[in-house]
């Protein structure tokens, strides 16, 4: 019994210490972010790896989510004789929730894990140490550009996800099932409010971008520099990233509803 309490205590202390390290890390990251915006090619390189290379998975996933929303939405709405509202349902679901959340989960698994792996391997092969000894701060040169690339890419990817998803819903609703084309779009136009839906969706995806990229770069930076350590760090990025996104989504949604 005492051992169990001691283990719980130790785990709590370890978690608090780790959170402290993560907080200090993000402060150092922000302090050394100047180089990222002075040397734009560094940022562009990481935007390409985090953003451009994630577009395919975002587009394919967005299309499938939109197709499913079209089918499920139509099936549910027709029970109440409201199938003409399909456009609004698809757009609201994607812009408010599914776009930011699913895009962030996909981003954590594709770009986040790649960031952790790259930083972890650079650590394991002493590349970060070598940079430090060459008087080049690795946080400024390697970590900060990746962080800002993730923060910038995330809302853009969420936007692409939602846009493709809406097209998927349109394809199922209008082309396959035969909902009226004009009604589909006009319902969507009437239902979607820019401030409440689009802007809040952008705010969410920005916050998710900060959370996921912070977790990804921190896990890479703090991993044990061995094959097993890097692999654990990648797993943590995906798992912690997904949990943090879902938890943050609840908190943000609650605040956004209270604010209305």
């Amino acid at each position, binding site marked *: 019994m005492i051992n169990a309490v001691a283990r719980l205590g130790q785990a709590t202390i370890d978690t608090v210490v780790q959170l402290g390290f993560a907080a200090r890390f993000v402060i150092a990251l922000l302090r050394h972010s100047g180089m990222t915006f002075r040397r734009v090619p560094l940022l562009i390189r990481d935007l390409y790896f985090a953003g451009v290379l994630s577009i395919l998975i975002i587009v394919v996933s967005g299309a499938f989510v939109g197709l499913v929303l079209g089918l499920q939405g139509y099936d549910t709405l027709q029970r109440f004789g409201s199938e003409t509202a399909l456009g609004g349902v698809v757009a609201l679901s994607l812009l408010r929730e599914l776009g930011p959340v699913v895009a962030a989960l996909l981003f954590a698994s594709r770009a986040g894990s790649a960031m952790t792996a790259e930083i972890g391997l650079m650590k394991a*092969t002493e590349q970060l140490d*070598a*940079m430090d000894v*060459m*008087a*080049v701060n690795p946080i400024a040169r390697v970590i900060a550009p990746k962080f800002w690339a993730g923060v910038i890419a995330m809302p853009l990817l969420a936007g692409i996800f939602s846009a493709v998803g809406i097209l998927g819903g349109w394809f199922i609703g209008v082309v396959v099932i035969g909902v009226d084309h004009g009604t589909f779009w006009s319902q969507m136009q009437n239902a979607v409010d820019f401030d409440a839906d689009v802007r809040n969706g952008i705010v969410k995806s920005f916050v998710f971008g900060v959370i996921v990229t912070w977790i990804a770069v921190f896990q890479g930076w703090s991993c044990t520099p061995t094959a097993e350590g890097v692999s654990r760090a990648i797993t943590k990025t995906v798992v912690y990233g997904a949990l943090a996104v879902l938890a943050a989504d609840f908190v943000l949604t609650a605040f956004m509803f209270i604010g209305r």
Partner: protein
Amino acid sequence: MAYCVTERLVASLSGVDAGYGTRQILHGIDFTVHRGQVVAIMGGSGSGKTTLLRLLTGQLRPWSGTVEVLGVRLDQASEAQRYALRRRIGMLFQFGALFTDLDVFENVAFPLREHTRLPEPLIRDLVLLKLEAVGLRGAARLKTSELSGGMARRVALARAIALDPELILYDEPFAGLDPISLATIGTLIRRLNDALGAASVVVTHDVVESLALVDYVYFVSRGHIVAHGTPDAIRNASDPYVRQFVHGEIDGPAPFHYPAPPLAEALMEEI
């Protein structure tokens, strides 16, 4: 060997205790290296050699004692002072630590691009000269994945001397090399040190190659300097640990067996 101890002191450690967290690694270390000198730090794995290097680069602060490198007191220096000092130091890592997203040319150009505003043609000329010095000008456009272990070490050496450092540090430069690459790296360490008028510190446990190359040797064991002197003095040292290390004896002060209860006792133990 072309050095004189009255030459300028490049680095010195005096009464240094150091470690990580609460674990002490080095105890009361006194160490000096002068301009023109190639100094070896020898000792078994885990003896504290690499920790000593980390003190010289300012990556680790001593718990007590003084660390002075190129006139900068590293035990008191700010982050900016440490970074400024590192521009005057070159370091070769154990396996090169080349940047895998850059090719050979860009690896060597890295410090020049980061710390100078030289025009591109001049950077190109400097990089080719550094690569020529290590015999790899023809490999300038190879990817790092296309290099052998010895070649990677030589590229890393070209990168380490890109800014003409006054102090060059080598962490296990001979580890895992074939005899030809080993002799090449050994020759380059001596030749580059003399050509640049620098000082070099070589952390190694390769006895034969090192004793033929260096001017002075420090022996580290369990965080203490147990012997130091010229290569000849080290070869004839009476210290049992140094004798065991230099002559490669399997048993001695560094025991063959990891500490354990007697074998008979272990065999009789019930599982």
